[in-house]
């Protein structure tokens, strides 16, 4: 793969050029935290950031999104008939997405893009987007991407990978989409024959800074029902402190569940979808009042079983987690997916016990 050298000044100039061809999205600091936003003309992405508080999930999949519009005016010819609103599908580029968040799109795609059904909202956004990733040179103590199918330099789902390098970046062009973007931005200085080795070296340094890991090698072999029934060893102690706040699901780049609601305003209305959380009792309650997951223990079990067992068995592509560590950092009661994963991986149904790691 080709590697080019982009100086800071060239990056800025290139982004300015790209403005006319596509919408630029990048990390910006608002109040105390970073988040992904569409950059205004001349606004630069803040590439000094560690990671955003909420993931880049919303770039493709907004927290609230209108799916359909309709008229409730009985005189209207199209009364009560749903129609898809015009959506902005102009090309866009995300500048500075972290590899864990980009890899999370790949995980989510398995849900939104299936053989039988394609979710047009998610998929059209995905297809319109070029991902310019920013390698992590200084991972957090809560990061465990290297054992979760990603990594600080993972470019498996990137079009371009940027790596910090002196006064600028080394840019590995990963896909044709990335190549086109680099060409439109005027980034074309060959970084020389040592560049790939320099990237590898930075990667090794970054990976060595990641101190926590999840063990996943045994998850597939575990019996689904045994893990589900591991109440005393896993679900009761883990769920005990959970307040079902749903923070983990909102912060998570791979939590994809949504609710659908209609809203009306006078004689018009919309059908919209909103992120939903399996932590909430309403998520699974029937109209009769019966709730198949009527305890917080049942709900926390659902979240971890989905990520670490149901997904593993269904897709055979690893876990539904890329190790970004947001849920670990943000959980108000210190529930740690690394500990839960290691428990599930090491669970012994005969003794109803598992290894408890501090991570």
């Amino acid at each position, binding site marked *: 793969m080709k590697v080019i050298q982009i100086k800071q000044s060239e990056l800025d100039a290139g982004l300015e050029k790209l403005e006319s061809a596509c919408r630029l999205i990048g990390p910006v600091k608002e109040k105390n935290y970073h988040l992904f936003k569409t950059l205004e003309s001349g606004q630069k992405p803040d590439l000094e950031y560690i990671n955003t508080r909420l993931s880049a999930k919303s770039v493709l999949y907004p927290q609230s999104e209108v*799916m*359909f519009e*309709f008229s*409730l005016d009985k005189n209207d010819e199209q*009364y*009560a*008939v*749903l129609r*898809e609103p015009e959506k902005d599908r102009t090309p866009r580029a995300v500048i500075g997405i972290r590899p864990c968040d980009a890899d999370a799109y790949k995980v989510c795609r398995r*849900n*939104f893009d*299936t053989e*039988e*059904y*394609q*979710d*047009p909202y998610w*998929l*059209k956004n995905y297809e319109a987007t070029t991902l310019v990733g920013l390698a992590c040179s200084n991972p957090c103590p809560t990061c465990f991407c290297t054992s979760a199918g990603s990594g600080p330099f993972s470019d498996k789902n990137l079009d371009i990978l940027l790596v910090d390098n002196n006064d600028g970046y080394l840019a590995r062009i990963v896909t044709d989409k990335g190549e086109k973007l680099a060409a439109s931005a005027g980034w074309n200085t060959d970084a020389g024959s040592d560049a790939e080795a320099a990237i590898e070296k930075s990667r090794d340094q970054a990976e060595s800074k990641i101190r926590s890991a999840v063990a996943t090698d045994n998850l597939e072999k575990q019996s*689904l*029902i045994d893990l*589900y029934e591991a109440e005393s060893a896993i679900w009761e102690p883990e769920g005990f402190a959970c307040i079902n706040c749903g923070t983990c699901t909102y912060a998570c780049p791979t939590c*994809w*569940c*949504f*609710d*659908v*609601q*209609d809203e*009306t305003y006078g004689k018009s*209305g919309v*059908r919209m*979808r909103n992120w*939903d959380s*399996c932590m909430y009792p309403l*998520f*699974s*309650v*029937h*109209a*009769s009042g019966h709730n*198949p*997951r009527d305890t917080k223990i*049942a709900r926390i079990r*659902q979240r971890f*079983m*989905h990520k670490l*067992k*149901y*997904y593993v*068995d*269904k897709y055979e592509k690893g876990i539904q987690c890329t190790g970004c560590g947001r849920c670990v950092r943000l959980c108000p009661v210190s529930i740690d997916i690394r500990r839960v994963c290691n428990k599930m991986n090491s669970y012994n149904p005969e003794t109803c016990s598992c290894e408890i790691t501090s991570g």
Partner: protein
Amino acid sequence: MQNPYLPYPVRIDDVTVETEDKSLKTFKFVFLNPGDEEKFSYRAGQFAELSIAGLGEIPIGIASSPTEKGFVKFTVFKTGKVTSHLHAMKEGDIMGVRGPMGNSYPWDLLEGKNVVIIGGGFAFTTLRSSIVYMLQPENRSKFKDIHVIYGARSPGMLLYKDELMAWAERDDINMHITVDGTDDPEWKYHKGFVPAIAEQEAPPGDADTYAIVCGPPIMIKFTQPVLDKLGYGHDQIIMSLENRMKCGIGICGHCNIGKELVCKDGPVFTLEQLNMTPKEY
């Protein structure tokens, strides 16, 4: 790219009150756009999302049979926001139907077999679809004996009563209609709970006999030991589940039981399959 969330617009063609307490009504829909009926090609046991603009969608089993053309029918119990509004809607009103969804009863497997249908209360809708489908002259010869054990609290709570009575007169289907109780001296069918009638009337289980069981949890709970006693294997007991759903196409994540999604991998499962999944339904 087709938008799988977009309902087909339909007009309510007819509304029938099914039960004496008026809690169940059957809605007959016709498609507004030519060609949509063909796209909505379904098998007995599938369901659809009924959509009312401004209120939302509800997943409901299809009560009409694929052999009935020109319309689709759904029998709806009045229970929540959308169903309450639907019960107030009239012939001529416009709404939406999205589907068909789910896997249906395993018709390929059931061909050449004895089929025993065991239903209770208002969970009889897709069973009606199945019976009409099997009784269709060109289909009837594909199946061996058909037994139907169907019960409700009282005669007035039985769905599709006219059809039930008509089927009871036929010799190509064994109807065992029952009610929990009645003070009607003219009542000529069974009295008693569905599991008890199943024990009396259902044929013994063998390799050629499959049971389809749909009903309230209490009926299912007490029917299972009866079927066990009669010798039905768990792979010969077929059930249809319900769970809270939103998208109906396996994307929104609401209706899972373990790794299976009730909307897409189900709603029809064998008891053998359900034995391997968490009981989150």
